[in-house]
């Protein structure tokens, strides 16, 4: 099946594009999609533990099964240690 991947902020910059299609085996989850993308772009690997995921317009967990045609978003985490509000 094919899903649409969207990248934001530093992920978009690291990969050099903000969206692409991904071919995944049946039964793939958000985690499967993430692993595929990291394999193609190892620069994303260090962020894995803190990445946020969304499908459609809702945050989801890594184990969320994907359906063909769905859009999965990879949201980069808060920048290293900067949990202080700026305003």
């Amino acid at each position: 099946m094919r899903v649409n991947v969207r990248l934001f902020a530093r992920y978009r910059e690291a990969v050099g594009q903000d969206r692409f299609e991904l071919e995944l085996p049946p039964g793939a989850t958000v985690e499967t999609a993430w692993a595929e993308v990291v394999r193609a772009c190892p620069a994303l690997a260090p962020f894995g533990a803190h990445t946020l995921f969304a499908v459609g317009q809702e945050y989801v967990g890594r184990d969320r099964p994907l359906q063909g045609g769905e859009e999965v978003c990879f949201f980069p985490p808060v920048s290293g240690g900067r949990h202080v509000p700026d305003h």
Partner: protein
Amino acid sequence: MYRITDQPISADALAELVADPMAGGICVFLGVVRDNAGGRRVRSLEYEAHPPMAETKMKEIAQEVAERFGLHRVAILHRVGRLAVGEASVGIAVAAPHRRMAFEACQYAIDRLKVIVPIWKKEIFEDGEVWVGPATTIEPSS
């Protein structure tokens, strides 16, 4: 109104959006670009959003405000693109019958926005840049 925009944010326009004959107080919060962050001098900021999801989450915040405070007059705007020091990146207006409620609900809304709304900013310093995103620790719903 809950909107991602590339236009300057006006406090008057926000107040206008929540105007209500039953309102005795309107609290408007503007988040503005500071000249420093983490001790470094900021040259400009660049905001990026997932607009449809950001607008959905803003609407959720307004629903939370309605549930917690019984208020239905909330407007949230967030700007994207490159902003200079002093420009407003986010604006929230809340109208309430009494002022205390307006303050509390407005503060609640901006606190929530920082956590759940998918918006990132790149802080551009004189000697580098850094991305900052939502501070969410929420448990995904599925």
